[in-house]
């Protein structure tokens, strides 16, 4: 533990330098020294020698490493900004060096599967809540760290990097984690709210990606703003039902991480998930889209997982189910849309 007594100057760890990870590292470096973990050796060298990330200059406050042990030793607070597909693996790599005094805040809007050994999603007829892990649950399962939090909200990395105003939610069961997150991140341009329902906030960020893909598809078909309004509000209802079934509270879904993020991602060409939907509607196949995107669109995996979960519970989630068919079973978007238009939604709001 270096610098343990100067709360002003403590070193903060950032694990993963994707676009969001980089944006967060930049913001943290405004106040504190940052040690960043990257997998690419050339990126580590670039940061340490040129103080830049992929050619964009960054603060000299950021140093990079490929060594989990070094990072864990120099920081008490770590931000994990790794895509869900690699999350478990990275957490396991860090686990031997993490101690109970560490605090982890993650910013990953995806889910992990927790299946019996040797099984994959296609082997399972149904999956239940225990088979699904949010990222905070992955951390709790794999490490001895219990003071865990998450970051969620309308935070498009490109806008953050430009220094445009935004806000986020730090959610944790522990007030101290929220306070630490607020102290480290808050600035004139960045507001930080707290929420104790970490599961609800994580799920908001995860589930809204489904709706974002659908919204991109509507835009790709050129269907106009009325349709989008319809989609967002019905999407919200679906999000709340799924979120409740997974253990989140209604309050979080109508907050910044829920509605706030939903509105942003459903309207922005900067969103990866939105882009997936948009390009699908333009006639590209899922495979080409995935192969040409530089970063992961979490929504695709989420749709697959949630569709299996929904089948196991006997719930109905029309948007998710139809999106699944579009993504993986070659249903035409137009047909999916027709189906949704005919679906007997009778009540507008029945969850409040």
């Amino acid at each position: 533990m270096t610098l343990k007594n100067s709360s002003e100057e403590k070193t903060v760890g950032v694990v993963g330098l994707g676009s969001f990870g980089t944006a967060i590292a930049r913001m943290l470096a405004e106040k504190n020294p940052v040690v960043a973990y990257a997998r690419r050796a050339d990126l580590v060298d670039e940061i340490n020698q040129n103080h830049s990330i992929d050619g964009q200059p960054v603060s000299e406050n950021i140093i990079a490493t490929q060594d989990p042990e070094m990072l864990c030793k120099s920081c008490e607070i770590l931000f994990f900004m790794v895509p869900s597909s690699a999350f478990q693996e990275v957490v396991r790599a860090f686990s031997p060096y993490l101690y109970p005094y560490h605090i982890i805040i993650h910013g990953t809007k995806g889910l992990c599967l927790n299946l019996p050994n040797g099984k994959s999603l296609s082997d399972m007829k149904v999956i239940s809540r225990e088979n699904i892990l949010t990222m905070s649950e992955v951390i709790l399962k794999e490490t001895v760290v219990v003071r865990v939090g998450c970051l969620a909200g309308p935070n498009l990395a490109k806008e953050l990097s430009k220094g445009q105003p935004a806000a986020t939610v730090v959610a944790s069961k522990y007030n101290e984690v929220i306070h630490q997150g607020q102290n480290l991140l808050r600035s004139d341009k960045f507001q930080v709210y707290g929420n104790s329902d970490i599961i609800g906030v994580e799920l908001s960020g995860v589930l809204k990606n489904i709706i974002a893909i659908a919204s991109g598809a509507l835009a790709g078909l050129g269907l106009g703003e009325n349709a989008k309004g319809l989609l967002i509000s019905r999407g919200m209802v679906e999000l709340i039902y799924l979120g409740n079934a997974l253990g989140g509270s209604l309050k979080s879904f109508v907050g910044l991480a829920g509605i706030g993020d939903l509105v942003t991602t459903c309207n922005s060409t900067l969103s990866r998930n939105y882009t997936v939907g948009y390009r699908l509607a333009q006639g590209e196949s899922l495979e080409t889209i995935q192969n040409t995107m530089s970063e992961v669109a979490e929504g695709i995996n989420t749709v697959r997982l949630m569709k299996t979960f929904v089948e196991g519970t006997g719930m109905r989630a029309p948007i998710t189910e139809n999106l699944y068919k579009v993504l993986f079973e070659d249903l035409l978007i137009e047909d999916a849309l027709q189906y949704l238009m005919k679906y007997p939604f009778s009540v507008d709001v029945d969850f409040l």
Partner: protein
Amino acid sequence: MTDDYIKHKYDPILPQKDEWPVVKLSKSRKEFVKSVAEASKKRILGLTGGNVAVLKEELETTLYREKLRIKQNPWAVDPDDDYEFWNNVKGSLLQLSADISTPKIEKKKKYIAILDEITMRYAEEIASNFKHTHYKFTRSIITSGFARLLNAARVKGIKRLFSNQYSLQDKIQTIGETEQLRDLASKGTIIMVPTHFSNLDSILIGWIISVLGLPPFIYGAGLNLFNIDIFAYFMNSLGAYKVDRRKKNLPYLETLKTYSSEAIQFGVHSLFFPGGTRSRSGKIESKLKLGLLSTAIEAQRANYQKGINDISGKVFIVPVTINYHFVLEAPSLIKEYLSITGQERYYAESDEFSTSYKISKFLFKFFTKGSDISVSVGKAMDVLGHYVDKDGNSMDKNGRTIETRDYFISNGEVNLDTQREEEYTNRLGNRIVEEFHIINRVFSSHLVAFTAFQMIKKQNKKLDLFNLLRLPEEDIVLDYEEFKQEVQRVLDQIFELKANNKIHVAPHLRRGIDEIISHGLDNVGMYHAKRPLVKNSEGNIITEDMSLLYFYHNRLDGYDLEKLF
């Protein structure tokens, strides 16, 4: 944990009674009570944030409730000067609030002085009165008395009065991590958390503790039990401190928690029934009362703050399950449970109940006939729910040693964060529930009750629980062959759970299926007037009391076994 019974004579871990923490505590009782009163005063002042108006309001509320209690619900055990004391408090409070001439700082001091008196009184009232001579006497009564009864019933002839052929240990079997418990008890502080199904539990656990050679544990006992002199004597001698459920005011609750926390810090082993009261439904506790549990975490942190970082300051949580074929109070417990959960959907039928007669009849039957009890001692955990090794070091899932102290560190120092400790308490509660399910031992009686109830439920899919329980018993018959098949399926699943270390089973479940069933039928609720399950003359299975069947069935709740049906 092995499934084997441990019948073994243990030497006391501390042969000299003067070394017993509880004896040390009773010797310095006066100073201890004082320090508890002082610490709880500080806590309350902390909670009121040093605000005089808030403190005044708390004091007034306390006074109001106490006066109400004296008037509406007085007990024999209440001190004679109760009325007088609270009248004086009233006087002082009135005088202070009318007084406008005294400066604020003076006034605050006077309010604190009143609080001081109250916490001192409460601390004195709560404190246990452990006396070693009484303890020895009580212990010998329990062991020798029960052993006499046991031998009188089993050994024939004149010898029976003196025979030591059967001891209580044949009757009550202990399994599990007893050696670890003894080890850790000699080095650190133990908090034992047993499941609670019967009033017999506290005596049973007290006896087990002494058989294992451990010094006595202190535990909170309802003040109502102290109303009766003879009980008061036993309770005191077993190291009980008093918990008055009538007093719900802030100073009392804080003093109570402080007492427990300070005693743990003093190094006295404690016993908490974390379910709070006996399990009404027959299910293993799944929601725990966290008030007392939080004092374990608090004491652990306080020890670290004092710089005691080695094992002598470490607090160990040891879950214990008590496994019965038969719970004496089952009929009244389940009735209470159903009338609370079912409300108007459940009408209790009247039933004459003569407790003392039933208890003596039960005790006699218990010692003269079968029905064994087993006590499973679980692995010790630290206050965060991590298992510990034989030297008391906490370990993570991969066997790496970790420091419990690190969980209380923020910015490099151990600090107090009540919100954090609340969350840790929830966590610990969940871990204890998990452990209960793991160390729980399945008996044949649980197995047959579970299977039979689920079969009946399946045959009457459309009925809710309350209608199901109201089915006329004479209409329910389970075909023996079918029943046998279903029992086998449940048993297979239980063994699969066991292979994954999620449950334990009694050795008698390794017999043939017919033998298991008949063992189960013979034992399930064996002394109730109406038996939960019996074989009828055609050899099929019938029930005489659905509610009781439900009660014994609940023991296997929480393992997803109902999905088999």
